[in-house]
């Protein structure tokens, strides 16, 4: 049985709940869980002041209620599962190293920022800086997967070093900016300046995009690894057009202001 945390009171100002993570709650009784310290703005309060705790922790935490003003759920978690039944606030799954977060609604900014491992799936949209680095850091996401069915905003995968980010909808500007390695797949439209400053890594786009003047077209080919990725994403519930599976792709190399060892693969089948 899962532990259910049901939001009974909407916060007036943001709640910060780093303690909502399997690592932190696994060995606690429900009354101890209710007494966990969280921050309501600058006030230290108890988790129970805002959430009812129902059931027992058995590797899974289910969160019910509109959590769009609740930050840091699953931050730094290393195992287990968190299911969020509605929307959720910023920093969800940031620096997590394992386990799984499923968001039925939409995520917000810094979803999975600097994450090390595990998986985050979002049925709705996500915000800016998905899987990105925090300001000043040399590395963003270093492992794991983020799968967003809807749209994401700017700076997805900023300085990411390993892992996969897949987006069913659109991505805004600077997707994969300063990327060190890893894979980004976007099935919808892209904003501008995709892959700016990328050193290595792959960004796969299904639609026509603006390419920076520092990328050069190297060849057209049918990358076989993509077939595996798409099959996997299909199994994760993303809608994949079958023509993509064997489709020809334009390969663009860049960014020449950096190592020039990154690639943007542009679907050329239509």
């Amino acid at each position: 049985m899962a532990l259910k945390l049901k939001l009974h009171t909407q916060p007036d100002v943001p709640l910060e709940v780093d303690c909502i993570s399997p690592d932190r709650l696994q060995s606690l009784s429900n009354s101890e869980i209710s007494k966990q310290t969280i921050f309501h703005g600058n006030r230290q309060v108890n988790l129970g002041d805002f959430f009812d705790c129902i059931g027992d922790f058995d590797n899974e935490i289910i969160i019910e209620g509109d959590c769009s003003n609740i930050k840091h759920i699953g931050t730094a978690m290393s195992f287990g599962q968190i299911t969020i039944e509605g929307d959720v606030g910023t920093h969800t799954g940031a620096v997590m190293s394992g386990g799984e977060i499923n968001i039925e609604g939409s995520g917000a900014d810094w979803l999975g920022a600097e994450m090390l491992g595990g998986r985050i799936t979002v049925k709705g949209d996500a915000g800016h800086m998905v899987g990105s680095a925090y300001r000043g850091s040399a590395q963003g996401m270093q492992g794991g997967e983020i799968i967003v069915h809807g749209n994401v905003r700017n700076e997805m995968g900023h300085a990411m070093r390993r892992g996969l980010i897949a987006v069913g909808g659109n991505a805004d500007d600077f997707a994969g900016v300063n990327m060190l390695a890893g894979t980004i797949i976007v099935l919808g439209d892209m904003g501008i300046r995709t892959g700016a400053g990328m050193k290595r890594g792959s960004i796969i786009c299904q639609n026509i995009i603006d390419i920076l003047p520092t990328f050069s077209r190297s060849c057209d080919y049918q990358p076989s690894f993509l077939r595996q990725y798409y099959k996997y994403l299909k199994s994760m519930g993303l809608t994949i057009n079958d023509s993509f599976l064997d489709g020809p792709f334009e390969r663009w190399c860049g960014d020449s202001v950096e190592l020039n060892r990154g690639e943007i693969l542009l679907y050329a089948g239509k």
Partner: protein
Amino acid sequence: MSENIKIVKNATCTFCGCVCDDMELHVDLDENRIVKTKKACVLGKAWFLEHTIEKDAHAAMIDGKKVSMEEAIEEAAQTLVKAKFPITYGLSDSTSEAQRQAVAISDIVKGNVDTTSSVCHGPTGMAFQGVGESTSTLGEVKNRADLVIYWGANPAESHPRHFGRYSVTAKGMFTPNGKKDRTVVIVDVRKTKSSPVADINIRPKIGKDFEILWALRALVKGKKVADDIEEQTGISLETLEDLVERMKNCRFGVFFFGMGLTMPRGRHFNTGALLALATDLNEFTHFVAKPLRGHGNVTGADNVVSWQTGYPFSVNFNRGYPRFNPGEFSTVDLLSKGEADAAMIIASDPASNFPKKAIEHLKSIPVISLDTKSTLTSKDAHVAFRVSTYGINTTGTVYRMDDVPITLNPAFDSPFPGDEEVLKGIKKRVQELMLARHNANGARGEAKVAAARIQE
């Protein structure tokens, strides 16, 4: 005009980031106003001449009614302490001494502090955190620069003495002939009052600065750029290559850049591209890049917030220690997402220049304002302090756009207190209130703390 005239020499104008400290002011001591300025530009003149004492204004008001200073300080302190997410914003037109008090208040009440940097050169600060920068004081530009490039800036209107004092006609150690020893380039999408100064004007397509800077970086590194570069950016490859040659072969090059880079799409990546280009050029010659900072002491605000917290702006203390995150703890976001529940606005007017949504939330929460004049923000403030003007009425320290600190040499006294004095009063009171709360919560086994232990 009365006979009672005092002349103040080497006064400092704090209207813009140039912080010219060579002003001569003629002060009418009977009428308490400046009647004549020497060396001031059009902006400086207005700054000095229009700062008269409004005799019918009240130093302290609560909900529009005149109150004593003590009552206003008490109400301000209570408001900040009661709030769960109090924010402090502004600070760029205030002395660093006052800024230090403001950051202290935010720390003590576990609130949030942000400065006008976040909607000005905040993106430059973020770019700096990504790539660093090569920079210099303005005297080095005056003494050495033989290639001066303005990008997305219009100093003729925003910093009128910049050309003359520091960058274009200024004569220095290795530039004895001023403008003749320099090449001036202006990159701007429109013709501005600055354009005639330039030897070379480059007018790109709108919103293509990043692409151009990126192409220049590639060319500097000897890489090719896409054939359709002119179609993409409006600038021909020949023009770019010519600029690259000039940049690599100059003796001391400088970029000055403005909000034409920080404010449009691309924000911190636009400025990051420019800082990176300047860094790249140091492989070939000496090159620096400098943001044209706007307000008189916005650079001081960056410095004070940095030395007290480790971060330049957008700093949150909710958890009892500083955290930095533009986009989360920046004022536009805290207001437009409805997260702040009280605000102290110092020397700034967000109610007139923030996005509409942010203004709407600001109007729904208690606001404490400190300003030298009535503004849209102070008009609706819960607690409004009318304060004296820094540099004109109060001394203190300001940091020029190149981080050079200068002591202010005020012209005449104001009946209104300075920011620092008001903020010190609020700080003392919030400290007492927080201490009382701490001692009341003594159930957690913490020792009670005597007030005597608190330092000034």
